[in-house]
């Protein structure tokens, strides 16, 4: 599904922010990417959702080297990836309905089919009564859920979420992660970047750790609820 081979990244003439990263995500898997702010989580995510080309190394998505794709092929491949951005990136001049509908409009879905899908998804994220609301009138948590709805409406094969719980309280963070879990059960590969170690420890999924642009496989402490749950059952 996702394979990174020796990926390094440098923004313009700046210092290298990712150093020779190797990573593999199997289809249908769920992974966390844990690391402090400035460790390179977002940069790694940007390489995966094709916002940046690595300065060194290779990014393979769905079995294809993204460097070899022409612009139309890149567009089609991006439609298979749902992205939840750290800063939501909702379009302020569009209401919640139109923001969520955006990926379907881009892929040419008919307006009729679009109505029911958006409404269903807004119910799923608990915002059925906010269809007409503009981002500026929504709280941070509501915006986050609209962003999640937008990321998953196209039924992506891969969901990449950069700090999706960064702006919400603990209770909502858990709720959002249950949404991702539900999506993963339906076959979507999920990769979530977060700095919240406690949250990662609550779920039984493998995680990577990134620090100063270097990636390593994370290890669960035996005391973590997820590890205990896994040991118990």
């Amino acid at each position, binding site marked *: 599904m996702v394979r990174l081979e020796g990926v390094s990244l440098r923004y313009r003439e700046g210092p290298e922010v990712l150093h020779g990263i190797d990573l593999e995500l199997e289809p249908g898997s769920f992974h966390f990417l844990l690391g402090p702010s400035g460790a390179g989580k977002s940069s790694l995510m940007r390489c995966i959702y094709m*916002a940046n080309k690595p300065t060194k190394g290779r990014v393979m998505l769905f079995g294809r080297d993204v460097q070899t794709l022409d*612009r139309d092929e890149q*567009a089609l491949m991006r439609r298979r990836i749902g992205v939840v951005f750290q800063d939501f*990136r909702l379009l302020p*001049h569009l209401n919640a309905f139109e923001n969520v509908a955006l990926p379907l409009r*881009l*892929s040419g879905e008919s307006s009729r089919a679009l109505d029911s899908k958006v409404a269903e998804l807004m119910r799923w994220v608990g915002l059925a009564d906010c*269809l007409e609301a503009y981002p500026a009138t929504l709280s941070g948590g509501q915006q986050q859920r609209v962003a999640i709805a937008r990321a998953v409406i196209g039924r992506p094969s891969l969901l990449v979420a950069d700090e999706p719980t960064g702006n919400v309280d603990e209770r909502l963070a858990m709720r959002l992660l249950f949404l991702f879990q539900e999506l993963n059960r339906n076959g979507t590969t999920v990769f979530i970047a977060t700095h919240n170690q406690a949250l990662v420890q609550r779920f039984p999924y493998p995680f990577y750790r990134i620090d100063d642009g270097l990636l390593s496989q994370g290890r669960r402490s035996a005391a973590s609820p997820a590890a205990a749950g896994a040991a118990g059952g």
Partner: protein
Amino acid sequence: MTGTPPLQLPLGRERAVRFLPWLIGFMTFLATLSLAAALLVNALAERWDQGLEGRLTIQVPRVEPPDPVEDERRLDDVLKVLTETRGLREAEVLDDSGMASILAPWIDDPTLIAELRFPVLIAVTLDSGELSDDVLQELSQRLESLAPGTYVDTHRRWLIGPIRLADSIELVAAVVLFMVMAAAVLAVIFVTQTSLTIHRSVIELLHLMGARDRYIAVQFQNYSLRAALFGALAGLLGAGLTITAISYAVVAADQSFAQPFQVGLSAWLPVAALPLAFAAVAAVTARFTVLRHLARL
């Protein structure tokens, strides 16, 4: 929720882009005036041309020393040749009163006209538009042999000046039109590039969601089409009102100028099509500017 989806790019809201309709409006105003001027001058030249088309004037000089009998004989010979020549429908000798009315602005004394012994004028009407050069040459030679000094006037030399003037004005109008269109293209390129810079983050977002370059280009194209069409229609309306005001003022000053402004509706079609032309040029320019810009990313 169904209906026309809003533009994903909030085009037209930024100050730098909002002046595009105004710019196109002014350009259409100028283009319309120059095109209308060319149209009116062309119509005038055509009217002169049609007025003289199908007619000849033959001047038969009087003999020296004066001999009315010989003059009469020559005139009869000339008329006989004219009636025998194919392609001529009618030949009418201008009598003394006709001559007097033609010369009235300069000479108002009929006896003086008779004394000055002007050539006899014959107004000839042709069957069709005009005679071929060969027929004309042959006719001139025959008349010259019968009445030396006879001159066949096709009126062409009188039309050369106005036709050249009309051609020059048409050329100037074409140059103005080209320059205005070129300025419109440059304005659309500038506005589109500014807009691309302003909306860079939204464009990146659309790309990340799988938008093709064409999809983004179509948004710019449609916006430019609407903005240019709106501006161009306003410019056309402004120019139309200006032309109407000028025509009223000119005709009020001198009724004889009414004719040039009486141009058939079909002749105004190129002018009426100007907003469509501006809109099409703006749309195509915006599309290619965006596609070129995105291809470089």
